[in-house]
């Protein structure tokens, strides 16, 4: 499988956030998106996840299963928010997403107990999600990546609110995923501790005033 982005650009409102971004990722490859605040990292990831339609350019998946309409259907997206309900227990949250998402072709998610063990919090799956600290919540949100199989992981600031130990734990999860032939795209300020990654540095458009309502 090969994820191809060609000449992507995106707008938010009238502002052009980024322009002409192209890359190609094969299985087992990771792309780390870096750049200052406001340079459009999150916007790029949302475009890749199919949540925003690009202004121009397109996203393609080569050698993908034929019934897939958009790469987002083969992707996990971990945004700034964890997509977990505070009122439900961690186990209820995870088993809901496991059943709701199902597995993409070519793999199966791991069991719930294994997933919470993999993020290092095996004892507290029976607690309501709201009782957990910010770092624990983030780790449980990562367990969500494991319970349903998706070949592509799109991660937006995955290690925010994590301590050093959890950082390493997360890097191991990503490595294991790449080792199994996955694709990872992550926006981050911190180094993920990955060895072989490609980097996309985004600069933003301070110099660029190409909006519709600007004087040419």
């Amino acid at each position, binding site marked *: 499988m090969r994820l191809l982005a060609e000449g992507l650009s995106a707008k938010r409102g009238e502002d052009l956030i980024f322009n002409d971004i192209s890359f190609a990722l094969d299985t087992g490859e990771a792309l780390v998106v870096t750049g200052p605040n406001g340079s459009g990292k999150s916007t790029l990831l949302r475009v890749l996840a199919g949540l925003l339609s690009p202004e121009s350019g397109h996203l393609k998946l080569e050698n993908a299963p034929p019934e897939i309409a958009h790469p987002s259907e083969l992707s996990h997206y971990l945004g700034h928010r964890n997509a977990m309900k505070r009122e*439900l227990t961690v186990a209820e949250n995870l088993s809901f997403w496991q*059943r709701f998402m199902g597995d993409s072709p070519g793999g199966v998610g791991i069991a719930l107990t294994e997933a919470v063990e993999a993020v290092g919090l095996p004892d507290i799956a029976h607690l309501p999600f709201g009782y957990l600290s910010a770092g624990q919540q983030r780790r449980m949100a990562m367990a969500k990546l494991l319970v349903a199989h998706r070949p592509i992981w799109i991660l937006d600031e995955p290690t925010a609110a994590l301590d050093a130990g959890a950082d390493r734990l997360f890097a191991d999860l990503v490595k294991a995923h790449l080792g199994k032939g996955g694709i990872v795209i992550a926006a981050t300020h911190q180094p993920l501790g990955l060895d072989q990654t490609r980097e996309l540095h985004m600069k933003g458009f301070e110099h660029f005033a190409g909006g519709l309502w600007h004087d040419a």
Partner: protein
Amino acid sequence: MIALFFRDLKLSIRAGGGAMIGVLFFMTVVAVIPFGVGPDLNLLSRIGPAILWIGALLASLLGLDRLFQAERDDGSLDLMLMQETPLLFTVFVKCAAHWAATGLPLVIASPLLGLFMNMSEIAIGATMLTLLIGTPAITFIGAVGAAVAVSLPRGGLLVSILVLPLAIPVLIFGVSAVYAAIEDPAPFLPPLMILAAITLFFAVIGPVAAAAALRHASD
């Protein structure tokens, strides 16, 4: 999909959920009416069906604004948008769960309030039946409003304002079916059938429109 249904049901029953609030609001609204119009039992039994219907309409609008906003606030909506399962089904199932948690209790509570309104047994039965058929339509219409207002900071009031005009046909045929059941010359079935048709119509149109609105609201 079944998982989504039960998750939403669980959420509305858990602490802070809206399942009980709707019924309570319904009872309060209906209990307030006799203070306004006076305790004349004949008058109350005449306007009873209409009051029950208006109360149920207002009560079922109560929790609607959180239908998608809660999902958006914690990021769940993003994941729902990404799935292979069409958003249409997700919206439909969410509406069904919302109705089971807030609409169904209204239907169950309506006979009790019917007694308070001194309504006859036939009127109570007819009201219950029309509510059972009609309230899903309100939920489906409300889903459109909730989806449109999903990204607004004060969407709650706006949802009510957007949805109430659209829900008027439901109210008209619901109430007229009940009165047709009480008063002999008017036939009962035609308005009931129209009510059922409205519900079926909105069960299709509502999720389609709501899904479209959600797609465009996400960014």
